[in-house]
């Protein structure tokens, strides 16, 4: 154990990578799934061990090939990183059992092994982005995860999945290229790619170069915002989420956008925030304005959707607005709210998309009009769905309430009353779109077409129920969410100028 212990950061990336290669070579769906499951269940242990270590004794710095930073690539895990690693790997672990049947149903036989291979690659990339302390390395991992994501989206049965994947590829690549341009500008300014080193070198003495810094900030913000689907750069998301295989949608909604948000937080608070007081720039104001626009516009669009997955996708755009609002508020309560919402939204949206997957598994459609009365045919699935819906609205007793609580406190901290009402007002629109579905699902008579539907098998039901239960649990006990997020925020804000 002692031999492994210091190498946890690199294992976090290497294990899924080897798993991906293995799954690719196995070629058959069953063994590939077994590999994916084993890797997925191992990852939270590694992440948990690292978070525990970080909370006990401060950030972990791991030097690849023993080259000390800033020359070598440094893997750095602090509280925020550990928190995100645990989230991503836990979501993967919890929803993995769901994949077997769902993927077998939605993806062609010959492609299933590749599916698991791509998932593991994607996991490698996502965990890598969070682990690495090197801006360029983050780009590489960003593209590893993105490229595998495009493939995963394209594996959907509907031919529109191909188009969605292509559009996502174009948008995603533009985003990544913007990001790398920004990193390039920073590199030109400082001669370093290590995030901590960049922050240290961009000191007050670089005030004269503020224009280049601002340009870098702008490029990185736009690039990462494309990846995280900040309104109005979200155009790729609804199609990708709607046509990707159900399980992929659940995984992506819970992890991919969230990791991009992590990257934004990292750049804002660990690099630009340390180097220059970016709060003097209009960046936060722009982020806040776009976040609020996302909360409203996307929610309203969600109200008019006729397809459950599309509706949930637009809801994701709106909910991402809550998170970025927390980033824009940039104070203790606000940012805590944003980070907490990363976890809370990940869990409830995964539950919702899994429920959509379970419905698709049983009746082969997720059009709202076909879902009449399905609550009585799939009671457990739809109960879990309903709980997660309450989470979206933010009723007290669910995790969504906790996020909102902190966000509103953050806005009140600044004495902003208008955003307070906008935050609670937008959750009212959430109530409308969620209520529309729940009404159809519970109050209508079941049609003949769904007469034979029933709750899915246990391997699909259990992840769903666990996630829904987590939505309630984290609404009542926030030690693991708000507690750790609060610590992470304290560290982030403590380093700001």
């Amino acid at each position, binding site marked *: 154990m002692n031999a492994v212990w210091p190498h946890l950061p690199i294992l976090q990336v290497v294990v899924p990578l080897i798993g991906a290669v293995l799954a690719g070579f196995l070629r058959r769906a069953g063994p590939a799934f077994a590999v994916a499951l084993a890797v997925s269940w191992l990852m939270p242990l590694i992440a948990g061990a690292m978070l525990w270590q970080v909370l006990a004794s401060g950030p972990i710095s791991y030097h690849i090939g023993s080259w000390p930073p800033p020359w070598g690539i440094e893997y750095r895990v602090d509280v925020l990183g550990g928190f995100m690693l645990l989230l991503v790997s836990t979501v993967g672990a919890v929803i993995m059992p769901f994949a077997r049947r769902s993927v077998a149903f939605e993806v062609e036989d010959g492609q299933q092994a590749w599916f698991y291979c791509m998932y593991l690659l994607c996991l490698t990339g996502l965990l890598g982005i969070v682990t690495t302390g090197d801006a360029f390395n983050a780009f590489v991992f960003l*593209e590893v995860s993105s490229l595998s994501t495009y493939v995963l989206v394209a594996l959907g049965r509907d031919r529109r999945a191909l188009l969605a994947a292509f559009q996502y590829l174009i948008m995603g690549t533009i985003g990544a*290229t913007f990001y790398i*341009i920004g990193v390039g500008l920073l590199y030109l300014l400082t001669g370093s790619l290590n995030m901590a080193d960049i922050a240290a070198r961009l000191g007050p003495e670089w005030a004269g170069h503020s224009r280049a810094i601002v340009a870098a900030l702008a490029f990185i913000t736009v690039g990462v915002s494309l990846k995280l689907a900040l309104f109005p750069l979200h155009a790729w998301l609804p199609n990708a989420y709607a046509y990707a295989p159900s399980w992929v949608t659940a995984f992506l909604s819970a992890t991919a956008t969230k990791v991009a948000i992590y990257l934004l937080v990292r750049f804002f608070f660990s690099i630009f925030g340390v180097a220059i007081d970016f709060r003097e720039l209009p960046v936060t104001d722009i982020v806040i304005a776009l976040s609020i626009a996302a909360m409203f516009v996307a929610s309203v669009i969600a109200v008019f959707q006729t397809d459950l997955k599309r509706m949930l996708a637009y809801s994701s755009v709106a909910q991402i607005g809550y998170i970025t609002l927390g980033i824009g508020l940039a104070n203790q309560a606000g940012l805590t709210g944003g980070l907490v919402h990363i976890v809370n939204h990940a869990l409830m949206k995964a539950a919702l998309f899994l429920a959509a997957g379970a419905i698709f598994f049983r009746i082969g459609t997720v059009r709202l009009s076909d879902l009449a009365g399905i609550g009585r045919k799939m009671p457990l699935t739809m109960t879990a769905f309903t709980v997660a819906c309450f989470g979206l609205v933010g009723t007290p007793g669910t995790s969504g309430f906790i996020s909102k609580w902190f966000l509103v406190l953050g806005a009140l901290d600044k004495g902003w009353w208008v955003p307070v009402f906008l935050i609670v007002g937008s959750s009212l629109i959430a109530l409308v779109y969620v209520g529309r579905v729940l009404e159809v699902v519970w109050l209508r008579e079941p049609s003949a077409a769904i007469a034979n539907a029933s709750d899915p098998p246990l391997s699909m039901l259990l992840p769903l129920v666990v996630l829904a239960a987590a939505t309630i649990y984290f609404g009542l006990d926030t030690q693991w969410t708000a507690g750790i997020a609060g610590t992470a925020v304290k560290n982030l804000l403590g380093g700001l100028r």
Partner: protein
Amino acid sequence: MPTLAIVTDHYHYAITIFLMMAGLYIVVARGNMVKKLVGLSIFQTSVYLLYVEPGKIIGGTAPIIDPSFTVYSNPLPHVLMLTAIVVGMATLALGLALVVRINEAYGTIEEDEIFERDRET
């Protein structure tokens, strides 16, 4: 005179930015998916220039330590761009693969025709 100096000192940036904008414009303006990918590649290529150009130090030599040289070019950007090229190539390959599949599924690679066909069904 200073204007001229700015031009001579920074013309490579102008080339980079021109490529960047041209690539991005093609991506946005063209409906043909292959052309979009071409634009995307140009856009990415401009980034290679952005990184590599400043790495060259005038009068510098390859970074092999030798007592007779004191000024070296920076090798790191080249290494970085090697990675970026790999990433770009993978993106292009995947994009083209998707275009092939789209062509099989829709019988066209023009975006507006595809939208039309989706609307029909």
